[in-house]
C-alpha cells in the first residue's frame, strides 16, 4: 500500500506539473513576452509599469527561468494580481469558490442517487415498463446539453409557474451562503443541481444497469439464491457491492466533467462561481484571474482524482498492483 501511495502521489505531482506548464504555455509562450507584460499590467498601465511587470514576471529572461519563477510563485500560493478588480487573484477566487463547491457537491449527491436508483430498478425489473422508461429517459438526458436543460428549467419551472402564481423556484441568480441559511441555500440551488445531475446521471443509469445485469449472471449469485437468501439481500449485499466497482471508477474520471458542467450551469443560472467568473473575465481581458481559476480548478480535479484512486485501492486490493 505504501508503494502504491507513493507512486500515485508522484504521478499526481507529475500531472500537476504538466498542467502548470500547459497553462504557462497558453498564457505566456503563446502570445509572446512583450504582449503578456502589457496585458498583465492592465489596460491603463504606463510603459514604465509594463516594464516593471515584465521584470517582475522574469519575462526578459529565458523561458525556463520565467517558468521556474512562475512555479515558485504558485508554490507560495501567489496567483498574481487581479488588476481589474484591484485585489489579489486569490481574493477573487475565494469569493467564487464556495458557490462552485456547493453546486458540485449537491449535484454529485443527486447525480449518484438518481443514477444508481434508476439503474438498480432497471436491472432488477428488466424489460418492465419502469426499465423502458428509465433507459429511455437516460438516452434523452444523455443527449441533452446542460445549457438547454437549464434554460428549459428556467422557462417552464420558473417563468411559466411564477406567472401562474406558483412561485416555487427562485429567480435565476439567487444565491444564499450555506452558513447564513441552509434551507434557502438548498432552495436556490435546486434547479442548478438538477440541471447538472440529470445530464450526468444518465450515464450512471446505463452503467449501473449493465453492470448489475452482468453480475446477476455470476455463479455466486445463484449460490446465494439457492441458499434461500432473500432477493433483497442478494441484490443489496451480493450484487450491488460488486456492481459498484465500475461506477466508482467512472465517478473518479468524471470529476473533471463535473467541473465543466458546473461552468455551464453557473453561466445559465448567473451564479457567480468560478466558471461564471472566468467567462466574465474574458470581456474585461482579466487574464491573471482566468489563469488563476484554471490552475485552481484543475488542481482540484487532479487532487480529487488522486483521492478517488487511493480510496479505491483501500477498498479493492487488486487495484494496487496495476
Amino acid at each position, binding site marked *: 500500500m505504501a508503494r502504491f501511495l507513493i507512486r500515485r502521489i508522484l*504521478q499526481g505531482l*507529475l*500531472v500537476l506539473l*504538466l*498542467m502548470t506548464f*500547459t*497553462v504557462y504555455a*497558453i*498564457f505566456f*509562450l*503563446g*502570445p*509572446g513576452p512583450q*504582449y503578456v507584460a502589457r*496585458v498583465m499590467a492592465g489596460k491603463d498601465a504606463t510603459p514604465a509599469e509594463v516594464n516593471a511587470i515584465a521584470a517582475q514576471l522574469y519575462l526578459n529572461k529565458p523561458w525556463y527561468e520565467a517558468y521556474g519563477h512562475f512555479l515558485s510563485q504558485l508554490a507560495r500560493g501567489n496567483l498574481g494580481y487581479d488588476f481589474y478588480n484591484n485585489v489579489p487573484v486569490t481574493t477573487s477566487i475565494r469569493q467564487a469558490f464556495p458557490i462552485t463547491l456547493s453546486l458540485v457537491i449537491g449535484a454529485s449527491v443527486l447525480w449518484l442517487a438518481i443514477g444508481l436508483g434508476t439503474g438498480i430498478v432497471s436491472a432488477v425489473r428488466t424489460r418492465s415498463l419502469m426499465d423502458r422508461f428509465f433507459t429511455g429517459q437516460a*438516452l*434523452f438526458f*444523455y*443527449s*441533452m*446539453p*446542460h*445549457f*438547454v436543460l437549464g*434554460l*428549459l428549467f*428556467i*422557462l417552464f419551472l420558473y*417563468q411559466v409557474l411564477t*406567472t401562474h402564481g406558483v412561485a416555487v423556484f427562485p429567480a435565476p441568480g439567487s444565491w444564499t451562503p450555506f452558513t447564513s441559511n441552509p434551507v434557502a441555500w438548498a432552495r436556490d440551488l435546486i434547479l442548478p443541481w438538477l440541471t447538472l445531475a440529470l445530464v450526468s446521471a444518465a450515464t450512471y443509469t446505463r452503467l449501473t444497469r*449493465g453492470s448489475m445485469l452482468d453480475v446477476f449472471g455470476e455463479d455466486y449469485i445463484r449460490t446465494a439464491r439457492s441458499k434461500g437468501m432473500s432477493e433483497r439481500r442478494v441484490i443489496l449485499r451480493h450484487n450491488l457491492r460488486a456492481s459498484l466497482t465500475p461506477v466508482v471508477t467512472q465517478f473518479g*474520471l468524471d*470529476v*473533471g*466533467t463535473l*467541473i*465543466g458542467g458546473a*461552468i*455551464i450551469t453557473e*453561466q*445559465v443560472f448567473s451564479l457567480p462561481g468560478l*466558471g461564471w467568473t*472566468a*467567462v466574465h*473575465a*474574458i470581456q474585461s*481581458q482579466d*487574464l491573471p484571474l*482566468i*489563469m488563476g*481559476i*484554471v490552475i485552481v*480548478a*484543475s488542481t482540484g*480535479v*487532479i487532487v480529487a*482524482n488522486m483521492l478517488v484512486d487511493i480510496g479505491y485501492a483501500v477498498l479493492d486490493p487488486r487495484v494496487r498492483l496495476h
Partner: protein
Amino acid sequence: MSHDATAVGEPTLPAGPAGLLAGAARKEIEGKSPWALAWRRLRRDRAAMTSLGVIAAIAACAIGAPVFAAITGHGDMEQFSTIGRTAAGQPVGPNGTFWLGTDDLGRDLLVRIAYGARVSLFVGVVATAVTVAGGTVIGLAAGYFGGFIDSVLARFMDWLLAVPFLLFAIALFSVAVQKPIFGFIGAGLPIVIIVLGFFGWASVGRLVRGQVLSIKEKEYIEAARAMGAGPWRIMFIDILPNLLAPLIVYSTLLIPATIVGEATLSFLGVGVQPPTADWGQMISTASGMFLYGPWWYLVFPSVALLITTLAFNIFGDGVRDAFDPRGDFSV
C-alpha cells in the same frame, strides 16, 4: 462513418427477400463477413434506421440551407428592422412571413437554424475525424512500443481525460481573441476544432491502446515480425484493421458529444463568433432575453440541437449493438 460500413457490407448482401430466395434456389452457402452481418443487424433496427433518416434530413437542411433562404426570400444575414421586429425592437413571433419568428436583430430564425446546422455538422464530423485519427495513431504507438513511450503517453492521456476542457477553452480563447496563439490559433472555428480535438483524442487513444496491448501478443503478429515486418507495417497493416469495428462504433457515439461540445463553447461565447449562424450562440443570445419575451428564440434552436444529438446517439447505440451484439467493446 456509417458509410464505411455500407461500402464494405453491401456487395455480399442479398437484396431483400428476393435476394434471399435467389440465394436459396442456388443452394449455395454464402459466407458473410462480419461487416455484412453488422449491416444486416443495423438494417433491422428500426430506431437506428429512423435516426439515420433524421440525420439525413438534418444534413439535407444544412446542405440546402440556401434553399430555405430562397423559399422564404430572407437571407441568413439579412436584418428586417421593420417587419422583423416589433415597435419596441423585440423579435417577432412565428407568423406567415417568418415561420419560426425572428431573432434579436430581426433575422429569419428558420433560415438561421438551417445555416446553423452547417456549423454543427461540420464541426461534429471534422473534429471527430481529427480526434479519432490522432487517438488511433498515438494509441497504436503507445500500445505497440510499450515501455517508456507507453508510460509517458498513458500519463498524458490520463491528464487530458482529467482536466475540464472548457476551462482550457476559456483560457485559449481569452488569449487568442487579442492575438492568435503561436501566430495561427485564432478565436472562432480554429479554437473550437483544436480544443475538441486536443482534449478528445485521449479517450480514443486509451481505447486503441487497450486493444493493441492484447492484439500484439497474438501469434500472427509474431509471425509477421518473424517475416521481417517493421513496426509501422505491423501497426497499420496487421493491427489496425482489427480495430476498425470498435473505432466506427466509438466515432458514431463521439459525433453527438462533439456537437454538444461545439454548441457549449459557442454558448459560453468562446466558440463560433457572430454573425455566423450557430445554434449554441443563438441559444446564448436568447437566454439573455427570453424571460417574459420571445420563447421561440430559445425553444427552436434548442429543439434543433436536441433532435440532432438524440438522433446521433440512438443511431450510435444501434451501430454498437449491430457490431457488438454481445457487448464486448468497452465503449
